[in-house]
Structure formats: structure tokens, C-alpha cells
């Protein structure tokens, strides 16, 4: 991802069998510009897989590798990598875009990615993502499926998918975050921060849309489960910057009133059900208290400490929410859990 030298653009036509073209279309829908139409049309067969999984010829395989290479970089750029931000690299903080700061970022795709591409056109067997490249492709596929109105449940063995779509993570399953919280993984998170923040904001704001208490309660329980597990791992690894997308998301909903939160619940539902939904939402928002504590801890790092610059870099990003935002979230959680939002 270093400097790009000017290159000559040439149009080259290659022929691939129709089945291979279908797979390439699906992968381009995942890695190309977001479009609901593309997502719906190109990924439709996911819901009705053909009996025979397709295989790919060498030309199509070459095109697939080309698409993955370009598409993955494009995704990391548009979902957060383009922003000029303070970025923590080992012991130092460097300000810039992702490719300025991490020119040697490497993404590898294993057979899990290839199987995922085949899955998009009907092969039913998916394997667990092995590499960060696989994780990224899984996440982008889940996002494309979601935008097309499909469930991302089939991709739930990916940690990034669980993080962005917590409803796919079973409550009795402990997610593993070691791959995405590795030093390379943290760079990938920087490249998809906007996507993750948008997802978490949409989940919360969506609770005010017409829905049901059962749906809100279920989603909140899954969110809390994933968030607790993720923040445990973030604490263990000492990388609070990985949780910045949660702060970015919270900045989009912290100014709402507690009454607005669940106004999408039908008034015909029982008070007991609505109160249970409110309590589950409050419990999820309560997890943000941990980030508030981290915020205070980082703010108390004295300037002569070696990790001062890193602490300040995280604080700069988290200032979008700030102490008042964290306090506001706490107030919302308190009101929702008190059962007194009817007053």
C-alpha cells in the first residue's frame, strides 16, 4: 500500500465460463461500492444454493485473486483507512492515513476465502476464517448480505462478523478475538472502523424504529455478550484503541433522551415485555461504563509516563463522546433500567 506509480490503463477482455462469472459477480458485489441493488441481485442464490457446487477455471481464479487484492485494499480505504488520524504503532503515535502509516500492511487469503467465494454461488461448506484477509472478506460479505436484506448468520464463525453483527453470536459461545487484536489485526480494525461504528449506531438507533420488545431484548442480550467479551480481550491485550468504533457509534446516539430509545415498541405490547426490553438495553449500555473508566484512566496518565502519547492519541479519538457523552449514556442506562421511563 505504498506510493502508486502512474500506470497505463488497458482494457483486456478475457472469457470465463458462466458459472465462474457468477462467482466473480458475487465477489465484486462484496468488494465493490456499496449498493443495495447489487447486494440483492448478485447474492440472491445464497438463499437457494444449487445442488452442485461450482468449481473455477484458472482464468477465473486469476481474476478472483485480482479482485480480492484490489477489493480488500479499496474496502480498507473507504471504511476508515482514508482518514487522517493519530494511529498507534508499537510505542509511538503517527498521524496520517492508514497507508501512510502502515505501507507494509499484508493481507493473506486462505482457502477459507476461496470457499466463501464458492459459497456465494452455492457451495454450502464454509470453513473457519484462517487469516485476517479471510476475516475481512467474511465481514464485507456479511455487510453486503445485510444490506441486501439477507441474514449474515451463515458467516457467524468469523470474529469480525460477530463483532459487527452480534446477533449472529450464540449467547453460550465465547468469541475469540486474538487474531483481530494482533498488531496486524488492529490495523485492519482501523481500516473498517467506520463500518463497525455505523453498524453499532444503526443497531441502537434501530431500537426506536417500529419493532417488538422480544426483538430488542434479544438483540441487546447478544450485543452485551459480544461487547463484554470483546472489551475483556481489549483490556487483556492493552489496546483500548480497538474499541474506538464503539465510542464513534455512541457519539451518534448519546444525545437522545431515554424516552426516545424505545419509542418504536408498540403500545399494545405488555408493560412487562417493554420493561424487559428496556432493562436489556440498559444492561447493554451499561457496558459503556467500562469505556468511561478507561477514558478516565487514560486521562490520568502523567506526561512523563512512556505511554502518555498513546493515551493522548486514544483520548483525542474518544473526545468525540467525551465525559459528558459517557455521563449521558449512563443516565440513559439508569433511566431504562429503573423502569421509570413512563414518567
Amino acid at each position, binding site marked *: 500500500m505504498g506510493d502508486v506509480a502512474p500506470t497505463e490503463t488497458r482494457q483486456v477482455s478475457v472469457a470465463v465460463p458462466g458459472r465462474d462469472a457468477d462467482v466473480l459477480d458475487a465477489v465484486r458485489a462484496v468488494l465493490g461500492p456499496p449498493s443495495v441493488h447489487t447486494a440483492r441481485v448478485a447474492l440472491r442464490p445464497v438463499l437457494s444454493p444449487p445442488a452442485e457446487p461450482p468449481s473455477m477455471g484458472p482464468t477465473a481464479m486469476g481474476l478472483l485473486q485480482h479482485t480480492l487484492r484490489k477489493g480488500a485494499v479499496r474496502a480498507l480505504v473507504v471504511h476508515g483507512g482514508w482518514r487522517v488520524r493519530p494511529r498507534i504503532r508499537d510505542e509511538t503515535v503517527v498521524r496520517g492515513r492508514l497507508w501512510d502509516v502502515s505501507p507494509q500492511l499484508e493481507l493473506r487469503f486462505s482457502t477459507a476465502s476461496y470457499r466463501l467465494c464458492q459459497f456465494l454461488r452455492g457451495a454450502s461448506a464454509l470453513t473457519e476464517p484462517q487469516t485476517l484477509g479471510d476475516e475481512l472478506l467474511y465481514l464485507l460479505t456479511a455487510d453486503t448480505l445485510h444490506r441486501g436484506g439477507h441474514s449474515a448468520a451463515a458467516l457467524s464463525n468469523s470474529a469480525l462478523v460477530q463483532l459487527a453483527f452480534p446477533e449472529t453470536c450464540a449467547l453460550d459461545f465465547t468469541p475469540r478475538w486474538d487474531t483481530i487484536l494482533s498488531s496486524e489485526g488492529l490495523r485492519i480494525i482501523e481500516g473498517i472502523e467506520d463500518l463497525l461504528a455505523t453498524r453499532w449506531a444503526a443497531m441502537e438507533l434501530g431500537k426506536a424504529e417500529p419493532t417488538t420488545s422480544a426483538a430488542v431484548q434479544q438483540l441487546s442480550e447478544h450485543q452485551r455478550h459480544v461487547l463484554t467479551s470483546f472489551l475483556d480481550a481489549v483490556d487483556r491485550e492493552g489496546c483500548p484503541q480497538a474499541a474506538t468504533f464503539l465510542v464513534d457509534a455512541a457519539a451518534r446516539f448519546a444525545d437522545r433522551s431515554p424516552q426516545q430509545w424505545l419509542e418504536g415498541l408498540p*403500545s*399494545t*405490547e*405488555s*408493560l*412487562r415485555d417493554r*420493561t424487559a426490553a428496556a432493562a436489556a438495553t440498559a444492561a447493554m449500555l451499561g457496558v459503556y461504563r467500562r469505556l468511561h473508566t478507561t477514558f478516565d484512566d487514560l486521562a490520568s496518565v502523567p506526561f512523563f509516563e512512556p505511554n502518555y502519547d498513546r493515551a493522548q492519541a486514544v483520548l483525542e479519538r474518544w473526545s468525540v463522546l467525551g465525559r459528558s457523552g459517557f455521563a449521558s449514556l449512563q443516565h440513559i442506562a439508569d433511566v431504562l433500567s*429503573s*423502569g*421509570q421511563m*413512563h*414518567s
Partner: protein
Amino acid sequence: MSRAYRIRVSESVTRTVHIEDGLSFRLELLDVVGAERTTALLRQGLLDAGFEIGEDGRARRTKDGIEVIVDASTGEVEVRQDAEATITKEGSLSRAVVSRERGEAVAKAELETKLDAQVHAEAEALRVRITAELERHVPGIQSELNRIANTVVATALEERARELGDIEEIQRDEATGELLIRVRV
């Protein structure tokens, strides 16, 4: 060749349904004078507001069909309303059948399912009415209990202040709930 019959079955179902709704919350009580004394003050406040203390030690009051139960030792409050109703639904159904006995049994089962659905719909409508009624009363109940809890805290603070010295002045702001106690120690 089989003969077709036209049959007509009539049925009546009567169901007794129990409908309930409610919510729980906790009163915010500062522990200024110890848990035991706080519990006693809250009990007294609830008795003054027309509650009765039950055998289980919890305070109860039923007003406008709404039962409020307060556990003074924990501050847990349960507000609930329930109702029992006997719902009767009648109906009839006619069908063209080949076998009279079998046709009657099938039609009867179909009619019962239909009538049960009508009973369920009426019970749900009743539950919605109860929920609406409860929702209308809940803010008033919560305000009343919050006032009682505030009085308990204020009384506890006064008692604590008396232990520290002579009270010279007490100022209460009913709007904000602020309490100022000047003590000569």
C-alpha cells in the same frame, strides 16, 4: 358413486382467561442511617400512604384495581394489574362432505379452532386495555413512591444531623428535592 352431504355444525366454547400485566422497579434510597432504620422509615411512609404490611413483610396496596407491592428492605417495587374473564363464543359452520361422521368431526374441530382464536383475540384485547389502564396510572404511582422515598431520605438526613449537633435551620426545595440542614456542632 358417493353421495355428498351438506352438514351444519354449531359449537359454543367457554374459556376462563387470566390476564396480567405489570412492571418492576427499584426505589433509590440513600443508606444514611443504616439499612434497618431506612427500612423502618420507608415502612412508615408506606403505611401513611395507605399501604398495609403483609405477613411476608412487604407493603401492599390495591387501588383502582392496581396492586402495588413494595419490599421495604430492598426498595423493590412491583406494580401489577390482573383480571379474570369468562369468554363465550358461539358459531356454526356448514360444509359439503362425503362421509357424514368424518365430515362432522373435521368441521367441529375447524369450528373449535376458529372459536378459540376468537377467544384468544378477545383476551388479547382485554390485556391491551389492562396495559393501557396500567400505563395511565404508573407515572402517578412512581411519582408518589419517589416522593415517599425522598421523604425517607430527608428524615434520615435530619436524624443523622441531630446526631452531629443542634439543628439550626432546615430548608427544603420541593421542586428540586434539595435539602439544606444547618447544624451547630
